[in-house]
């Protein structure tokens, strides 16, 4: 069964991802992970999420995918042993030192990070023979290449289906090191590839007012999910440990529906799932390398951001059955008369116009102005905790 794998930058995002349909979640620890700003997890938080996931028969993977320098190795052995003790389901890494120490000291399942940019079955098989169960393939592979690798390798494969894309082969870029002295392969990437440049040929200016760009649109692979499922790919991965709760819930939920609908022969038009994603997606998307060599269509030349069609305004924290009100925690401004949508982990949505809103003292108020304030909204029946409240923008 193909797994849907989602990112989480903190505990709440991890729980949300699991509740909204991810089979597994990958997270970064405080050390050894490429995403230090993603409010990374300490061991206690990892354990809490692992326990939460295992209760749901789901999995947690911990990324340790920095390229290790000698002074990074300090504490590695103890950390690996701790991860095994708290029952994480796998580690995702790319440095031989991590792979070998994990094999020597633990029975942790090991996945090879896309940082290694594996692009063929020979290399995938090599890592399989080295004790690595799963290989995350490079995002530079076409659908046809993915199929060729999959047909020939013994390794389980993990494929990126959604989110940001490096323009360089992953792990092979030091633009950030050179331009801003931040190590791209140890969590310091400054996204230099998204800067604006002028292009010259010798001394002749070719570009116009710094309009040379090399940035990529984000990946969106809804149209290839069926073929990936038919291939029996082990894991379909969503990128974005830095993304919001709303983004995680929405994108995970859309791909969950797509996978389940495909498996149950109930596929709806792809535009349905794509429209769902657009409720939270704020970057232009494209099909990456899936259809072959990238063209102008996969590049981001105008720096335009897409506006999500819906705005995340609160999260459901409970239900007051006496008053028949849902309790929510505010995340963004909204007010009475707004068109709202409740989006549940069970994929049910309820749309309504907000008529009344109460603060924590149950005083009626006109608008929700304060971040994280607890509010209540009249509603006839209970709503699942962790449901999201979204404000519908003009469609």
């Amino acid at each position, binding site marked *: 069964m193909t797994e849907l794998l989602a990112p989480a930058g903190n505990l709440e995002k991890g729980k949300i991802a699991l509740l909204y349909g991810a089979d597994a979640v990958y997270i970064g620890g405080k050390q050894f992970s490429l995403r230090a700003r993603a409010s990374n997890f300490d061991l206690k938080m990892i354990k809490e999420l692992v326990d939460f996931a295992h209760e749901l028969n789901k999995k947690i993977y911990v990324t340790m995918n920095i390229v290790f320098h000698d002074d990074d190795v300090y504490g590695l052995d103890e950390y690996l042993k701790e991860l095994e003790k708290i029952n994480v389901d796998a580690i995702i890494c790319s440095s031989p030192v991590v792979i070998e120490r994990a094999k020597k000291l633990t029975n942790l399942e090991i996945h090879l990070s896309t940082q290694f940019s594996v692009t063929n079955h020979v290399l995938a098989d090599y890592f399989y023979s080295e004790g690595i169960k799963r290989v995350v393939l490079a995002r530079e592979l076409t659908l046809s290449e993915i199929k060729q690798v999959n047909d020939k390798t013994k390794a389980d494969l993990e494929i990126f289906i959604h989110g940001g894309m*490096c323009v360089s082969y992953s*792990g*092979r870029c030091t633009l950030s090191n050179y331009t801003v002295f931040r190590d791209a392969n140890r969590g310091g990437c*400054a996204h230099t590839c998204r800067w604006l440049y002028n292009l010259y040929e010798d001394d002749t200016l070719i570009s116009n007012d710094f309009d040379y760009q090399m940035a990529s649109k984000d990946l969106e692979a809804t149209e290839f999910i069926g073929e990936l499922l038919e291939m029996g790919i082990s894991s379909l991965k969503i990128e974005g*440990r830095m993304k919001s709760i709303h983004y995680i819930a929405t994108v995970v939920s859309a791909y969950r529906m797509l996978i389940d609908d495909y498996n149950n022969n109930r596929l709806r038009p792809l535009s349905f799932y794509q429209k769902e994603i657009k409720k939270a997606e704020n970057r232009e998307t494209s099909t990456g390398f899936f259809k072959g060599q990238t063209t102008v269509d996969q590049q981001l030349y105008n720096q335009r951001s897409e506006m999500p069609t819906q705005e995340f305004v609160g999260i459901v924290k409970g239900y007051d059955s006496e008053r028949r009100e849902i309790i929510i925690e505010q995340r963004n401004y909204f007010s009475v008369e707004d068109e709202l949508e409740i989006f549940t982990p069970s994929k049910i949505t309820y749309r309504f116009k907000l008529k009344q809103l109460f603060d924590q003292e149950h005083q009626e108020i006109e608008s929700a102005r304060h971040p994280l304030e607890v509010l209540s909204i009249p509603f006839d029946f209970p709503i699942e905790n962790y449901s999201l409240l979204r404000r519908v923008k003009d469609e």
Partner: protein
Amino acid sequence: MNIVARIKNLSEINHLINIGVDVFLVDTTLSVRKINPQIYQNLSEICKYNKPVYLSVNKMIHEDDLETLEEIFSQAKNLGIDGFVIGDLTAMLVAKKYDLLDKIIYQPGTMNTNSFDSEYFFEKGIKGITISKEITLEEIQTIFKNKKTELSIVGHGYLDMFYSRRKLLTNYFKFKAMERENIIDNYSFRLKEEVRENSNYPILEEKFGTHIFRDYALESYDELEILKKGIDDFFVERIFLEDEEYYEAIIAYKNKNNVKSFLEKHHNHYNKGFYYTYTEKLKDDSND
């Protein structure tokens, strides 16, 4: 410590030998950042000069490249090639089939950043690894202390810092609707940052993708004695350098009396790379 130089044409071989080059590095059909892939057709001729010859096989290997890779190893085995400078570990695995594992030099550019890498690849039986280009001289010396396999370094020239499969110049010209020939293998394109106007990064699109290079070339004259303590092969990168400057650079590595005049002449486009610059980690990233 061997000086490894890239060959551009047959007519310069005797000159390269005379100025002290120890090993020739030759482009192949699976080279990227190449200077002359046609030279590969003259491989048997180059081998007649009784100098060690390495082949550059540094492309990321996709499924369609595997057959070509096998052909390169098959031909090279008959010619007694001394080394294969590979960018993708796949080449190590294919080399094993041809009993050429002990000729492999793993040079991914990044990745070889700690002492353990040397030990790991020693156990795999390869000839050596090239230390990554983004680490400090102090870190390099730490790797020396635990040296197991042969070590090499790209110690001179314009080093690449970005390797994409995308056609980043061709696509740009299409986006601008500019009719344009001579994009591929054109060594004249440069990028300038919006903020730092004096930046000037060479950008090269080849058949296999696009590369961006540092705007200053690396030189290692002051560091040479330290490097000699652990480095077996010192690669002198040639791309974007004029022939005369390339030869002068090699001469200066072979004879320190020539360093001063070389730097006086060319100092304005050289720096020390990351030898004394420790790059920060743990800020933010886009990879998983």
